[in-house]
């Protein structure tokens, strides 16, 4: 009987070794270890054994069972792993094939840059305000210290919709409207983006474009504050290495007035085609609010001072993206809108 048990163990192991899949293993398990399996059959014949032999054979039979079960488990693991590996290998795909396309959608570059600029200034405590695109002569010119016959009117060729009504030529009327509504409340800090219109249409001018106006009024707002705020803006917008340069200039509604240049974003100031070799790019105009404008809007110009600045959104956007043709911004060619 002992021999028989040993033979079963040997035979079963050979079968398990030869089995090539989990199904075969299960058949072998049933054949040797099942309720009607070989091992059980042998154990059933234990009745014919002597009392001394019985425990020994019983023990042997148990150890054969344990040994086989262990062996079976090992083989099962081996085969499972093998099958998994085979499956994974079968399931291989070309991961370099393109993904399923999403409908992308993008914001217009002007909107994105406007948002960035607004974010910089709201972070500095400025509120975003808007104003009408169709304006009166009063808000667009008179209240900004640009009376009729003023030479500055020549610089801004205007579209008229009525004798005293026009398409605003700049966002500056928002300054006046805001001050009028707030006076004599301070501090006042606003940023005013919007569409503006000028009678000009060529490679570098569009009859409709965008400006962003800024204004701060308070006790003791200084020209130095203007320089500081615009320095922060230039560095946030174009990178911390950007340098700014203030040149005296002229606007009827600021005094002193300045034109602000930043170090060229393309060449870093060494001089290139974009900056015409000067290393500088003109990006905005600014100044201390003209006392007359403060007075017209209801502020005592002895007590309060302020600064104002205005920039062209198209100019900033073109510099940020390296766009060299203004028309692209209004053509709405999808290849442009998708690319940028």
């Amino acid at each position: 009987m002992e021999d028989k048990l040993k033979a079963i163990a040997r035979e079963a192991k050979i079968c398990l070794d030869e089995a090539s899949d989990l199904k075969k293993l299960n058949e072998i398990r049933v054949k040797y270890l099942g309720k009607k399996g070989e091992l059980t059959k042998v154990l059933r014949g234990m009745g014919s054994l002597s009392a001394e032999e019985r425990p020994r054979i019983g023990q042997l039979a148990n150890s054969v069972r344990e040994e086989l079960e262990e062996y079976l488990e090992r083989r099962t693991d081996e085969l499972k792993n093998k099958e998994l590996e085979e499956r994974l290998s079968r399931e291989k795909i070309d991961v370099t094939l393109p993904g399923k396309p999403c409908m992308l959608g993008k914001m217009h570059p002007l909107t994105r840059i406007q948002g960035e600029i607004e974010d910089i200034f709201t972070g500095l405590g400025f509120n975003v305000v808007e104003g009408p695109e169709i304006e009166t002569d009063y808000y667009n010119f008179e209240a900004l210290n640009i009376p009729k016959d003023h030479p500055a009117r020549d610089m801004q060729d205007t579209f008229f919709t009525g004798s005293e009504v026009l398409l605003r030529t700049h966002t500056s009327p928002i300054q006046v409207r805001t001050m009028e509504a707030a006076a004599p409340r301070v501090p006042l800090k606003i940023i005013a983006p919007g569409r503006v219109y000028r009678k000009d249409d060529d490679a570098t001018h569009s009859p409709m474009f965008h400006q962003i106006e800024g204004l701060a009024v308070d006790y003791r707002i200084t020209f130095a504050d203007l320089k500081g705020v615009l320095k922060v803006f230039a560095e946030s917008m174009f990178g911390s290495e950007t340098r700014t340069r203030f040149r005296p200039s002229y606007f009827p509604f600021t005094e002193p007035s300045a034109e602000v240049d930043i170090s060229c974003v393309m060449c870093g100031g060494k001089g290139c085609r974009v900056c015409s070799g000067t290393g500088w790019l003109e990006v905005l105009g600014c100044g201390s609010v003209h006392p007359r404008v403060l007075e017209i809007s209801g502020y005592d110009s002895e007590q309060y001072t302020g600064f104002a600045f205005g920039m062209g959104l198209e100019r900033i956007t073109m510099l940020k993206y390296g766009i060299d043709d203004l028309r692209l911004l209004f053509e709405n060619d999808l290849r442009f809108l998708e690319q940028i």
Partner: protein
Amino acid sequence: MKVSYKWLQEYVDIPVSPLELADSITSAGLEVDSVAELGKEIEKVYTGKIVEISSHPNADKLIICSVNVGGENNRQIVTGADNVKENNIIPVAVEGARLAGGLKIKKTKLRGIESRGMLCSGGELGLDTESLPENQAHGIMILPSDTPVGEDARKYTGLDDAVIELELTPNRGDCLSMIGVAREVAAIYNTSLKLPGADPKSLDEYIDGKAEVIIENNELCRRYVAKLLTGVKVFSSPVWMQERLRSAGIRPINNVVDVTNYVLMELGQPLHAFDYDKLKDGKIIVRRAKEGEILQTLDGTERKMKKDMLVIADSSGPVAIAGVMGGADSEVTGDTSMVLLESAYFDPSSVRRTSNYLGLRSESSLRFEKGIDVNGCLRAAQRAAKLLQEMGACSVLAGQIDNYPEYIEEKTIPIRPSRVGYLLGKEISQDECKNILSSLQFKVQQEDEEGFLVTVPTFRPDISREVDLIEEVARIHGYDRIPQTLPSGESTEGGRTERQRIMRQLRRELVACGVYEAITYSFHSRKEFDRLRIPEDSYLRNTIKIQNPLTEEQEIMRTLMLPGVLDIVRHNYSRRNYNAAVFDTGKVFHPRDNSDLPEEREKLAAVFTGKTENAWNTASGNMDFYYVKGILEAVLNRMGVKGCSLEPAFDNMTYHPGRSAYIQVHGEKAGIIGEIHPLVLENYELDQKVTAFEFDMEVLLQYAGKKDRYIPLPKYPGTNRDLAVVVAEDILARDVFRLIRKAGGELLRDVKLFDVYKGNQVSEGCQSMAFSLKFQAADRTLTDEEVNERISSITSILQKEFDARLRS
């Protein structure tokens, strides 16, 4: 304004190079457009004399010149020029020379004859031929006969100079003169200014009785100075003057004209020279023109006058348009023997209006428009008389007529250095303020601890109050020396309004749905209304009109957004971008009866055409009505807009009558969605379906952004049931939904339509709609009986209302 570096040195010592000078005047507020270093490229070009000319044996059009460029030996040069004669002195480029534009000269053979160099024209030396005198502008440049031979030709052609071109701001008319720029330079470098002499030697004979000046409109002509010159000889002005005029871009003509131009450039005062003998009765009358009066101006054009223009007339009629241009009849010619020199102050606005109206801009009108120095008129007349007299061109009658009815005083303005510091954020001492203002020729007086008084010369009409003086101090002190600080006052929060946040969110949501943002113009042609089939009586045709549009395409302000976005589709279609999903936000404009300003409403429009992107494993889908409606629903959902419904829009002519709907929010019409009408597509030359929606943001803004409160998630499982009903084809899904929800009651959590079928499985004229219903209660698990009861009330109401049959 072109400023010659060499010429400028006559009035001020310049301690730096032209390029450095350009930098520092830019920093002081005179923007430099360019610096042209003349003759910089030129090498080895000498003055030479043509000793002999002989004909070329092999070519009719060529000649052989023997040229002396210094030393004993002459060199042989072949040229095709036809304006040279023996003994002419000309610029000669020898072998190894370099000309303007980098051209190099080598020894060569022309038709078999050796040529050792080249005779040069002004253009080849880089001179502006437009400003060369007539006799030098064409062909080889013939230099004056007393020019020494063998010298660097640059010295004798005005090329040893640099020209700084200024782009002046409109307030700095005073810098439209050499003396004005010199004043700035003197202030920047703290050096002294040298004024040119203006003291002609006069004859014993006085002007009195020979001429008369009557000013009829003092407000348009504040001052009129006349000088009388006699024994006038008209000839070419000296080379130095010609060179200076050329450097300023002015072509030399003859000595009389050149001197008036020279003084205009030097002092900024426009002058005019009349042929005295052509002025009837020696009379100058400054008056308004008579309507329709005609004058032939110097440029040969007949000008018809309007009555608000100012003219200079004699007893018989106009002889000049004041401040703009003189008349041809009284022009100085070779026969002129007496000249009446005009130096006047005309009103800036009047000159601007006149020159705008006539489309005639001159160096004179440019200066009058900006405002010249009323107290400089006499000095300019004297200066011109002196220059002409010194070149032997005339004698000067003693005295002058100076009609100056109302003397214009210099303004006196107080300035407080404390205020300078307050405004600039940097303390600048009283002494420095004084020094800067004095260096700019302002007079400083009555100093005390508060500040001092500043007398502003009349050549600075732009200075009228303290802040203007502060700017002068700041710009000469240097903007770059003012520190950079941040406002020190009470802090402010800063941010966007609710409205602005919602508008931004809307754009983001549309982008998230795969739609691209576009920006279109706010104006378009009125023809767009016809293209869109907008009814004649529609309020949309009541527009704001632009009175002076650039083109017909931009004549009215938009009242709807659709033209802009359809134009995008057309534009892209023509560039073979067939698939588009684009939106645009902006304002539309409606006239208002009770206000000058129109109503401005924020609108949104989106267009979709073509297919979604396909890929190797995904078929593309049409961007059709349901695709677009899905996007609309998604956007409204994310914006938190509740209570939206669509009502079929049979009556809108722009859209497909069976495929369009009005968008309603809480019963208020807020927009439209639909397929564009085929006839409209035809008008836009599109042969592919386009679906669009337009939305009035003002309505949306009322309902957007309302935050929902959280509803607890269900604790008990729900039950799903499918229900397919067959109803007539014309029953709207919306109505079926409404009945199902009504009959389903509170326990019906969700209804989804998952299939619509028409075809041979259902009878003709019918459709099957399959719904998936979810029942759920918050407080218990529903029993089958409860659910069945709901289902049967749903089916019975559908049966009753729509004669619906259950489909098994």
